[in-house]
C-alpha cells in the first residue's frame, strides 16, 4: 500500500500514484515508469497507439476487459483500477495469442501502432459473448465480423499507416478462445475493482472523484468552476492539445447514481455516466435509431470511455448523440443540491457550447419517451466511415400511419451553432402522405434548415446539399426495405 493510498495495478503489480499531477495522462504515467509499449501517436484519441486495457464492471457483476485511450484519461482517474498493457499480455518468448497472430501474419510493419492494436484486439478477444454464433447479433461473418465472432469495430479507433490493415484483420479473425489457464480470462468472472474515492493534488490543480452523487453535488457547489470529467475523451484533448489545465476537476464517471439504467413502459432512462459502449449493450438494439448511431460514433476506444452525458455536457454542435436524441424527443435530468429538473433536449442548447445547465448542476440521466417512432435512421456525413467527426448528422424519427406522416422529428448536427430540430421540415411532413412527391417538397425545405458554414470538413454548399438529400435517402431506403419485404 502506497503511503497516501493512491495506487493502481499495472500488469499485476501495484504502482503508486503519489506525486502524479492531475494533468498527467495515463500514457505519460505509464511511459515514465518504463512501460513504453503504449505510444503517443496523436494525443487526441484518434490513432489508438496508446490503447491499454482496464478492468471495468460488466453488466453481470463480473469484469470486462475494456480498451481505452491512455492519452486521454488522467492517471489520477485510474486510482484503484487495474490496467494491462502490451507488456503485460506476453513477452517475446511467450507471446499472447493475440500477439502471436499479429506477429506471424505480418500484422506489424513499423510496429509503432502495434502495442495499441494488440490491446484493442485483446479486449475483443476476451469479450465474453464473442464466441456466440455471429449470426445471433444480426451479423453473419462478413468483412467486418469474423467467423470467430470478432467485431472489427473493436479496432475502429486504431490507425495503422503501414499495413493497409488486411493482415491485422486476418489476425483478428484467426483468434480462438482463451485457454482454461488464461489468467485474464479467469479475471472476468470476479468483480471489477471499485473506483476509489480520490483526492489527488498537484501543481496544476486537484482531481477529485466523489463516492456518490451527494458528494459530487457538494463538491460541485463548493467548486462551481470545476471541470466535470466523465470519460475524459473531450477534456483529455483540451489538456493535451490546447494546454488546458483545471484548477479543480471532478471525476463523475463512476458515480453510482449516474450509472443507472431503466427500460420502462413509457420511457427509457439512461444514466449520464454510462459509456456509449455500455448504453449500446444495455439497449441491445431496442432503440433502433441509437443502434444505428453507435457504430458511427467515434470509435470503440472512444465509446468505451465517452459517456452519453458527457457528449451532451460539452454542448458541442457536432456531437453525434444530440441529433439522434433530438429526434427521439429526449429529455435531460439535471441534478443539483436543490434537487432535480427535467429539460427537453430541444431546450437544452442555448448557443455555441452554451447550455441551460447552471453552475452546481450536472446531467444525471437522459430519458427517451416510449413508444418509438416506426421509421428511424441516423445519417452521418463524414470523410471517413469509422472514427470521424460529422460534417452533417441527421437523426430521423417518423411515424407513418395509414400512409400519412403522423409525426416527424428530425435532429440536425453540424449545421448551426448548436444541434437543432428541423422544425420547418417536420411541419412540411406532418399530416401529409409519405410519398415521393411530399418527401421531395419537404427535402427542399430541409435544404434551407440551419446556417451551415464552410470549413475543412466540408463546404457549406455540400452541407446544404446533404440536408437536401437526407430525407430523399431515408424515403428511398424505407421504400426499398418495404419492397424487399414483399414476398416474391
Amino acid at each position, binding site marked *: 500500500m502506497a503511503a497516501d493510498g493512491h495506487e493502481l495495478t499495472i500488469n499485476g503489480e501495484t504502482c503508486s500514484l503519489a506525486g502524479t499531477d492531475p494533468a498527467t495522462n495515463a500514457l505519460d504515467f505509464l*511511459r515514465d515508469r518504463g512501460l*513504453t*509499449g*503504449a*505510444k*503517443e*501517436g*496523436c*494525443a*487526441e484519441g*484518434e*490513432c489508438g*497507439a496508446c490503447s491499454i486495457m482496464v478492468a471495468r464492471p460488466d453488466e453481470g457483476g463480473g469484469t470486462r476487459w475494456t480498451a481505452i485511450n491512455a492519452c486521454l484519461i488522467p492517471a489520477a482517474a485510474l486510482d484503484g483500477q487495474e490496467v494491462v498493457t*502490451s*507488456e503485460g499480455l*506476453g513477452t*517475446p518468448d511467450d*507471446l499472447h495469442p493475440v500477439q*502471436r497472430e*499479429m*506477429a506471424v501474419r*505480418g*500484422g*506489424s*510493419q*513499423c*510496429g*509503432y501502432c*502495434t*502495442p495499441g492494436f*494488440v490491446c484493442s484486439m485483446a479486449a475483443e478477444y476476451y469479450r465474453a459473448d464473442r464466441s456466440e454464433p455471429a449470426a445471433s447479433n444480426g451479423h453473419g461473418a462478413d468483412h467486418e465480423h469474423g467467423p470467430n465472432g470478432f467485431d472489427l469495430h473493436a*479496432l475502429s479507433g486504431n*490507425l*495503422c*499507416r*503501414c*499495413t*493497409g*490493415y*488486411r*493482415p491485422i*484483420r486476418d489476425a483478428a479473425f484467426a483468434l480462438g478462445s482463451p485457454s482454461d489457464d488464461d489468467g485474464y480470462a479467469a479475471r472476468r468472472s470476479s468483480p471489477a475493482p471499485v473506483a476509489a474515492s480520490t483526492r489527488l493534488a498537484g501543481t496544476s490543480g486537484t482531481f477529485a472523484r466523489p463516492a456518490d452523487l451527494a458528494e459530487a453535488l457538494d463538491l460541485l457547489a463548493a467548486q462551481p468552476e470545476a471541470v466535470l470529467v466523465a470519460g475524459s475523451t473531450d477534456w483529455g484533448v483540451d489538456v493535451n492539445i490546447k494546454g488546458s489545465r483545471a484548477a479543480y476537476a471532478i471525476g463523475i464517471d463512476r458515480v453510482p447514481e449516474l450509472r443507472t439504467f431503466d427500460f420502462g413502459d413509457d420511457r427509457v432512462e439512461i444514466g449520464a455516466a454510462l459509456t456509449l459502449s455500455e448504453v449500446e449493450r444495455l439497449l441491445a438494439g431496442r432503440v433502433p435509431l441509437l443502434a444505428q448511431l453507435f457504430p458511427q460514433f467515434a470509435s470503440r476506444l472512444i465509446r468505451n470511455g465517452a459517456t452519453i452525458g458527457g457528449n451532451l455536457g460539452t454542448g458541442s454542435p457536432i456531437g453525434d448523440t444530440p441529433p439522434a436524441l433530438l429526434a427521439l424527443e429526449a429529455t435531460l435530468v439535471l441534478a443539483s443540491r436543490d434537487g432535480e429538473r427535467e429539460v427537453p433536449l430541444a431546450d437544452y442548447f442555448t448557443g455555441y457550447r452554451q447550455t441551460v445547465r447552471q453552475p452546481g448542476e450536472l446531467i444525471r440521466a437522459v430519458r427517451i419517451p416510449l413508444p418509438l417512432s416506426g421509421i428511424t435512421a441516423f445519417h452521418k*456525413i463524414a*470523410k*471517413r*466511415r*469509422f*472514427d*470521424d*467527426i460529422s460534417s452533417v448528422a441527421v437523426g430521423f424519427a417518423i411515424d407513418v400511419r395509414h400512409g400519412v406522416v403522423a409525426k416527424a422529428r428530425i435532429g440536425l448536427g453540424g449545421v448551426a451553432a448548436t444541434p437543432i430540430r428541423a422544425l420547418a421540415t417536420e411541419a412540411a411532413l406532418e399530416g401529409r402522405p409519405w410519398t415521393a412527391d411530399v418527401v421531395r417538397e419537404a427535402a427542399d425545405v430541409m435544404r434551407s434548415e440551419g446556417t451551415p458554414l464552410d470549413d*475543412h470538413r*466540408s*463546404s457549406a454548399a*455540400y452541407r446544404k*446539399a*446533404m440536408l437536401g438529400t*437526407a430525407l*430523399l*435517402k431515408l424515403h*428511398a431506403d424505407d421504400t426499398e426495405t418495404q419492397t424487399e419485404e414483399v414476398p416474391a
Partner: protein
Amino acid sequence: MSALSDRPTNPVVGESLPHEAASLHVTGQALYTDDLVGRLPGTLHAHPVQAPHAHARVTRLDVSAAYDVPGVVRVLTADDVPGVNDAGIKHDEPLFPSEVMYYGHSVCWVLGETLEAARLGSLAVEVDYEPLPALVTVKDAIAADSFQGGQPRMERGDIDAGFEAATHVFSGEFEFAGQEHFYLETHCSLAQVDENGQVFVQCSTQHPTETQDIVAHVLGTPSHAVTVQCLRMGGGFGGKEMQPHGYAAIAALGATLTGRPVRLRLTRNQDITMSGKRHGFHAQWRVGFDDTGHLVALDATLTADGGWSLDLSEPVLARALCHIDNAYWIPNVRVNGRIAKSHKTSQTAFRGFGGPQGMLVIEDILGRCAPLLGLDPIDLRRRNFYVHGQATPYGQPVRHPERAVTCWEQVLTTGDVAARQAEIAAYNSIHEHSKRALAMTPVKFGISFNLTAFNQAGALVHVYKDGSVLINHGGTEMGQGLHTKMLQVAATALGVPLSMVRLAPTRTDKVPNTSATAASSGADLNGGAVKNACEQITERLRSLAGERFEVAPAEVTFSDGMVSGGGESMPWAEFVNLAYFNRIQLWAAGYYRTEGLHWDSSIMQGSPFKYFAYGVAATEVEVDGFTGAYRTRRVDIVHDVGDSLSPLVDIGQVEGGFVQGAGWLTLEDLRWDESDGPNRGRLATQAASTYKLPSFSEMPEEFNVALLEQAHEDGAVYGSKAVGEPPLMLAFSVREALRQAAAAFGPAGTSIDLASPATPEAVWWAIQEARGGAEPPHMTAMVEGGTGVVPDQPGNGAHPIEPRSERAQRVSSGA
C-alpha cells in the same frame, strides 16, 4: 543470370518470414527513439516557439521571460549556433529564422526540465512580427512568378507535328493535393555528449549520414565528432529523409550547450504544422490521340508546390517528369516543370517521390478522355502500353514491357473482370441511387536514385569465433522490412541458418557516407553491400577449405550451416573457429554500387533507372448517389517484385502502399487557410481528428494480392526487385473507379472532372456534374479540336536543374 542475382540452393531469401522485430513490436518491447528517454537521467525536453504568421519578419525576440518559468533551463536562438545556421544543405533553411516563411515556423526553442516547463517557457517568449504578404496556393505563387530551383524540360519527338497529326486533341488543367506522411511516430531526436566532446544523436531518420552532416555543420565540427544512430522508425515514408536533420541539430546544440541529454519529440500538431509533405501539383496539359485511341502527343507543364525552401523539390520534380508516361508509349512529348515557392511547409520526399504526381496527370487525362473517345478506359489504357524496343521520353529503353501485359492479363483473369463488368452494368441499370464501377490501372516505376551518385551502399559483417554473425548496413528500418531482408541475404550468402545472424542498429560510425534509405532502393543497395561483405569472407574461407578438403576453392560450398567440399563437410561454427586459428580475417566491409546508370538532369536524358517495377490493380467501388460516400468492394493486384526476397514482407508493402495511395487520392485532405484573415496560411487539418488517414473502414472488403511469378531480375540482389514505392500508385485504380461510378449517374459517354482527393464531397460534386446539375467548383473546360491550349512555357530567367544540384555545395559546408 548474373552473379549478383543468382540464388544458391536452399537460400534463406525467398522464405516467407515475419518482420524480424515482430515479437518485439507486439509485446511493446521494440524501442523507438523516444522510448530511450527514461534510460538517460537528467534529460532536458525541447519545445518550439511557433510563429502565428505565414510570412513575417521577426522584429524583436526577447526570451528573458522564459527563464522566469520554473524548470526552464535554456532558450536556444540563432546566437547560439557555433557553425552554420542552416537545417539543410542549400543554405535556404535557416535553423533559427529571422524571417518567418510559413505558419508555425519555429523561431527558437526552449529547453526545460520537463516538457511542461519547456511548453510554458515557450509561451513566455516574446516575439514581435512584421507580417508580410503570403503566397499560400500554388496558383498564388504562379501568379506572382514565385519559383525556386531549376525548371527542367523533357522533350522527345516533334510536339507541333504530333498535334497536327492528332485526330483528337484535348486540353485541361488539374490541380491536386499533397499528402501528410503521418508516420505514427513523430519526429524525434535524443542527443547527448559522450566522452571527449563526441556528440551522439539517436534519431528517427531515414538518412543518418545527412543527419550527421547537418548536425556537424550546425555545431561547426567535423563529421567524425558526430555519431548518429537510428534504432528503428515508427514509419518514415520519405518524411524522415530530409526533415529530421534540423530537429537533430537543435537537440545536439542543446546537449553541447547544457552538457545534458536533450530530447526533442514533436507533438502531432507540431509535426504536421512544421514538417514537409508530399508536393501538391498544378498541371496544364494538352493531349493528342489518333483515330485508334493511341497517344500521339503530350504537352504539359507541371508546377510542384515546393513550399518555402527547396529541400528535395528538384529531384521530386524530375521524377514526376520521368513518370508522366507511366506505362504508355507517347511518341511526341514536351513536359516542362517548375517549383513554386510558397509560404507553406517545405514539401519533401514522400513514397513515390514525384512519380505518383507525374503518373496521376496521365491517368487523369486518360480517365477524362476515354468517354470522349468513345473507348472503355480499360481498353484505352491497354492499347497504349509500351512494347519491346520502345524507350521512355528521357531516352531509357523500356526493358520487360511484357511484364505489364502479363500482370494486366493475370488481373483480368483472376479478378474475373469481364463477368464482373457485366454484373456491374446489371446492378447499375436497376439502382437509381447507387452505382458501381471497376477500373484497372498499370504501374511502371523506375528504380534507382535519379542522381547516379546516390546509388551506392556499404555494409559491415562480422563473423565471430563461435560462428555467430553480426551485420551492419547503411539502411534504416522504418517498417518496410529491410532488416528482415538483410538478415536473409546474409544467411543466404554465408550459407548459415537465419538464427546465427543478428543485425545491429544503423550507425554512422559503423558504415559511413550512406545514402538515404529511400527511392525503394534499400534492399537493392544494402543487399548488394551485405552480400559483397559476406562473399569477401567466404572467399577467404574458401581457400582454407580448399586446402583442408583437398579440392579446388571453387568447389567449396557454404550451405545449411555446413562448409563442404570433396565429399567432406564441417559445421560452420567449427570451421570458422579453425579459420581464426589460421589467422583468417573473419569480418569485412562490403560495398555496392549500381552499374550501368547515367543521367543528365540538365537535359533530362539518360538511363537513370536500373530497371522498372511493374504492377496492375483492378478496383471495384460502390458510390451512394445521395451523399457521394463510397466503399471499396474489391481490389485485385498483381505486382512484380522480381523473385521476392521475403514474400510476406513484400505483400505487406504492396497492400500498405496501395492503401496509403488510396488515402492520398480519396481521403487525406490538406486544407490551408486561403483567406485573407489572420490565420492565412495556417493548416486547418493539423491533427488526427481533422486529417483523416485510411482506417479499417477504407480497407477493401475483398483484397487479393499476388506477386508476379517467375520474375527474376538479373540486375539486382538475388533476382529481386524493389517494392517500397511502386504499389502506392496502384491506387489510381480507386480514383478511376470513383470517376467511372460518378459518371454512371449520367448519360453514357460522360466525362468526369474529379477533384483530388476524391472525398465523398468531391465525388458528390462529380455526380452532380454527371447529372448535368450544378457546376462543381473544380470544373475545367476541355477543348476538343485544333491543337489545343498550349501550357505555360518557361520564362526568360528559367534554368534547368543543374547536374548534382540536388546536393550541391555539400562539401566542407560545416568544417
